[in-house]
């Protein structure tokens, strides 16, 4: 059936973090109007944080997001430490790296197995996977093996996979116990073959939507989620403290979230951007076992964000295994004290969904002002723009199928609406 005139509304896109909807108006075979609205209600963190003592800032800002809370935690610690001139120790950096690896394994695991894999297998939900089917049975068990490994790594080094209690400004409140490290190693080894299978599944997946866009991610001397400069596929390298000057804040009147443009255009952040820009820096064992899948990058296929996430799961397992096989002791260190009580600090890290920016202005160890830019806000304009193409490319299908294609496409970005609606710029035009 060819649909040349219709209105379609997807009220609540399922299997994503938070609430987003989409309305489209098609006339004479063209999308006349399309609105993607991120519709979670705001909690006004950037207002609430003003005047608060810095010691409580990381744990409060972690509450912006449930799934990537540890990314907000580490990014706000980074911004506070830069503002008050604390240089974290080598061990602190290593533990933060392991917490981040745990986050990536667990968060990508949730997205790939629970949100996106049903699309690949033609099921509505992981609850419908057929255990008598060999592949579905295997992937169902892999789901919990991989997620459990990431969860355990986060527990061992952060105390919990959500709102981790151990990390603090200047160091940690508690340090990993030997038995927790051994348990992490055991689960990571068990998860590795599952991660290799996951790469294969998403490498074989034929979903395609090509986007000529700019990819933006942190880039360092190694495959690093916490340090580096901001690199763009168009060639720029920007020090992280200057990132905000290159982002153009864009008010989207019908969305509860802020959108951003990079140098005036839509752009994409996330695993696809990271692999496109830094695939040569992946762990050698990951390169060996994801070899053919890696040949697809650099890629302009938005659905390869899923494959890029799967490769990152494998990389984070490989890197964590190497780090923990070579180091079993993490002796307690006293948290480092601040050299100053005033300053402006910019923290930029790679959250699971992409570039995360926290800027804090601090005076007398209290917050004067805060600005936060999250990955989903940065991807919002790209998502909406490309949805026009998704709808127009599926006009020969029934409405229900078009709705499914829309949801499947949005899921490929792995949006997190809780993050995106944490605050809003106040000025409406």
């Amino acid at each position, binding site marked *: 059936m060819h649909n040349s005139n219709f209105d379609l509304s997807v009220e609540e896109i*399922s299997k994503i973090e938070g609430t987003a909807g989409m309305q489209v108006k098609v006339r004479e075979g063209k999308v006349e109007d399309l609105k993607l609205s991120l519709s979670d209600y705001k909690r006004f963190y950037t*207002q*609430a944080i*003003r005047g608060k003592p810095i010691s409580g800032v990381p744990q409060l800002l972690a509450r912006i997001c449930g799934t990537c809370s540890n990314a907000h935690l580490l990014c706000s610690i980074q911004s506070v430490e830069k503002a008050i001139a604390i240089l974290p120790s080598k061990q602190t950096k290593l533990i933060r790296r392991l917490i981040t690896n745990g986050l990536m394994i667990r968060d990508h695991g949730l997205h790939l197995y629970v949100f996106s894999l049903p699309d690949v297998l033609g099921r509505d939900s992981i609850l419908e996977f057929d255990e008598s089917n060999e592949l579905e049975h295997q992937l*169902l068990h892999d789901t919990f093996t991989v997620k459990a490994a990431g969860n355990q790594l986060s527990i061992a080094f952060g105390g919990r996979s959500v709102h981790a209690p151990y990390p603090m400004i200047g160091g940690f409140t508690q340090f990993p116990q030997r038995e927790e490290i051994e348990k992490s190693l055991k689960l990571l080894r068990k998860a590795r073959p599952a991660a290799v299978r996951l790469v294969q599944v998403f490498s074989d997946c034929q979903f395609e939507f090509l986007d000529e866009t700019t990819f933006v991610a942190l880039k360092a001397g190694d495959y690093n989620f916490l340090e580096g400069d901001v690199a763009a596929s168009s060639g720029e390298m920007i020090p992280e403290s200057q990132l905000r000057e290159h982002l153009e804040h864009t008010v989207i009147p019908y969305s509860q979230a802020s959108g951003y443009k990079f140098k005036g255009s839509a752009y994409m952040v996330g695993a696809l951007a990271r692999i496109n820009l830094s695939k040569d820096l992946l762990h050698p064992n990951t390169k060996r076992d994801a070899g053919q899948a890696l040949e697809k990058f650099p890629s302009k296929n938005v659905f390869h964000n899923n494959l890029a996430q799967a490769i990152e799961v494998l990389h984070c397992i490989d890197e964590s295994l190497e780090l923990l096989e070579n180091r079993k002791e993490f002796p307690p260190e006293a948290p480092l004290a601040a050299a100053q009580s005033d300053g402006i600090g910019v923290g930029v890290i790679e959250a699971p969904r992409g570039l995360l920016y926290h800027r804090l202005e601090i005076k007398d160890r209290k917050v004067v002002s805060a600005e936060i830019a999250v990955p989903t806000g940065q991807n919002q304009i790209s998502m909406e723009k490309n949805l026009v193409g998704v709808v127009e490319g599926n006009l020969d299908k029934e409405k229900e199928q078009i709705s499914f294609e829309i949801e499947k496409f949005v899921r490929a970005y792995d949006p997190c609406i809780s993050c995106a609606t944490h605050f809003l710029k106040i000025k409406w035009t």
Partner: protein
Amino acid sequence: MWKKAEGIRMTEEIQDLQKKLRIGWFSFTCCEDSTIMMTELMNDHFFEWKRLLDIRHAKVLKTKNNLDSLDVAFVEGAISSDAQAEKLKKIRSVSKKLVAIGSCAVTGFPSAQRNLFDQATKAEIQPILDRFRYADKVLKLDEVVPVDAVVPGCPMDTDIFLEVLNQMLTEFGIIPFRERNSLDVPGT
């Protein structure tokens, strides 16, 4: 009643329905941290839950959801608007029990932090509240509907959640008391 052959099949279907707890999982204004903790509990409990739970509504797990008669609604998040309050009342009206999940549902906070803003900050955010029809105050769940049980924590305390879930499974006759004891519940 019904014909014999058909009757056997229908009886099995009814028994199949009767042996599962009909639940929904809903999120309002929050960071959905308890949803994440729930999906992490699935690492150890998925196959047991698949046997015992009929998950009728969980947007985080599936697209095809039914808001019909529920035994238990698990609700996380605070209530930011009249539209959310109406949706919560609808959920309450089709659920025999309603459990508040996590700090925002149980206490309102931190989602309710705007309730404590000074006048200047309130004036600053007012255009947003007006544009998207926010309520004047963010409410915890029991300020809108009766709540039967609570699982506090930010994120929710998973031990308490498992305890409440097993209480519900026992109360609705899904599992006998002895099986409840055999499940992985702290303190049993």
